[in-house]
């Protein structure tokens, strides 16, 4: 009557369970109204678009300034909101599981701790990807509208100026008139094209892609910290510090090479050797300054991100599998 089940020797790692965990994590976070950020973002973008267009700089190429300001607002907000989501949402994942003791019921099932941990990470990663995509689409839309407005205005101004000149000189030969107007049209098209180029859609997409990978890495670092932390405040503070120091890696490298002070050198060395270079993901400034960055090199940055994701998650796993729950 009573039975002893026949058990296999091992239970293999299973992506299905990771996915189940990930979706559950995603639902959990969306119900916590993380997406309220989106509304703030939308207001910010619309505000920026209208604010910067009423602001006049008295410069000849105003479109450069206007587009720059809108792009700075959009990319800045995406990166900041993203970082806040990446740190705060991730930092509370494990503490919430522990506090609500939901983790007991999950790990009492035939679930590897790695599956649990990866599920949590993939959930956050999905959330970040969705947020960045939503904010990014909105942002690109605003840039597109601005681009259309500015280039249309430039185009018509140029054409109208030429037509005015033609109309103002009645003794102009018809062929000359034709020529002047044709030249004006070419110039107007060039001007519009120049504005489209300044809008830099591809550069924006590149910048957002690298930003997303940076956010994933930040989330992974936060998860790694919370895999041994006992307080959420500790996790948030430490993640923020890692975030800042990660951006200082290039400076630390330089400092390490040139500094004479032993203590400073030691600190710079630690940062240099053990922290991922988060500044490497900030490509917007370089792109907008006109330094070309072909997709292949963007891919190199992304693979650097993947490499550090692997390192960080490995560390998180090593710590978490030993953790007492």
């Amino acid at each position: 009557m009573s039975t002893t089940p026949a058990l296999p020797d091992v239970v293999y790692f299973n992506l299905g369970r990771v996915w189940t965990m990930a979706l559950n994590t995603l639902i959990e976070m969306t119900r916590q109204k993380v997406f309220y950020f989106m509304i703030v973002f939308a207001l910010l973008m619309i505000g920026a678009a209208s604010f910067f267009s009423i602001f006049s700089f008295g410069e000849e190429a105003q479109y450069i300034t206007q587009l720059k300001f809108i792009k700075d607002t959009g990319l800045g907000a995406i990166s900041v909101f993203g970082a806040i989501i990446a740190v705060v949402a991730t930092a509370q994942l494990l503490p919430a599981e522990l506090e609500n003791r939901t983790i007991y019921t999950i790990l009492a099932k035939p679930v590897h701790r790695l599956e649990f941990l990866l599920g949590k990470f993939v959930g956050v990663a999905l959330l970040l990807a969705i947020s960045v995509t939503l904010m990014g689409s909105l942002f690109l839309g605003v840039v597109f509208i601005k681009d259309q407005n500015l280039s249309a205005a430039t185009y018509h101004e140029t054409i109208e100026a030429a037509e005015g000149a033609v109309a103002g000189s009645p003794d102009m030969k018809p062929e000359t008139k034709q020529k002047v107007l044709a030249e004006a049209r070419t110039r107007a098209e060039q001007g519009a094209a120049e504005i489209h180029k300044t809008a830099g859609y591809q550069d924006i997409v590149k910048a957002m892609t690298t930003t997303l990978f940076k956010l994933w890495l930040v989330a992974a670092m936060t998860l790694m910290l919370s895999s041994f932390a006992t307080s959420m405040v500790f996790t948030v503070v430490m993640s923020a510090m890692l975030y800042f120091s990660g951006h200082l890696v290039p400076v630390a490298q330089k400092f390490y090479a040139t500094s004479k002070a032993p203590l400073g050198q030691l600190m710079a060395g630690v940062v240099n050797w053990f922290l991922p270079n988060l500044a490497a993901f900030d490509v917007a400034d370089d792109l907008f300054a006109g330094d070309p960055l072909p997709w292949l090199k963007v891919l190199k940055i992304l693979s650097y991100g993947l490499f550090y994701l692997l390192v960080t998650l490995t560390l998180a796993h090593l710590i978490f599998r030993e953790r007492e729950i």
Partner: protein
Amino acid sequence: MTPAIEIKGLTKRYRTGLRRETVLALDHLDLRVEPGEVYGLLGPNGSGKSTTLKLALGLIRATAGEAKIFGKPCASVVSRLHVGFLPENPYFYRFLTGAETLMFYGRLCGMSGAPLSKRVDELLQLVGLTNAASRPLAGYSKGMLQRIGLAQAMVHDPQLLLLDEPTAGVDPIGSKEIRDLIIRLRAMGKTVLLCSHLLTQVQDVCDRICILNQGRKVREGRVDDLLRDQKRLCITVESLPEAARAQIAEWVEDWGASVVSIENPQTTLESLFLDAVKAQQPPTPPNKP
């Protein structure tokens, strides 16, 4: 036959705080639960019942000793393939409904599709939550959470159930239902390990029990055996006239024995429990390394 649970010399020392103070929660515990039996783990607060369960599930690591489930070491995921666990005061994702919760746990156990939905309906029926199936758990009462916890533990139809205070917070009717459920599970050949304070309930359903105190096993055995007082005898008679009572008392004293009481004497699990625990008083201070 491979025991459902086999625990040998299991010891757990918790570190507390920054100073190197420790709490000895479990002290060389040996335990063996055979397949098909209902085993009760009793003990006062802090005696190490929950610690035993957590060790058996690999949630924490033993300081010494080992625990095996169906012959597999408890640290391995394999050992959990046929285990259902109900933690004490269970608490689930507040944002999921009852049905969603069960679906989630079912998927974690590798179930999916129609068999899973069917199983979920079955379980909701079984624990009496069919009407609340589509309400988020945030609005569940304590007893309802306990029921959904029980359903969750059974979702993949495991052979072994570890229940930490399954009737806590459940009303008397529900508590009776849970007891009946356990008895039914035994009839189906399942093994159940349950922790409880509610002694009468344990008495009703358990084949064997073990009493823990301060991390040590103080009694173990079949409920019937433990409750039988070997030195005392209880004769239950019907319609004995008042006069005969005095005669019997005399007769007993002639044999050199004594009559303790003539009313219906009862040794309950309750008093047994108290005796066992009192024998160890006063409690020792926290262990230092």
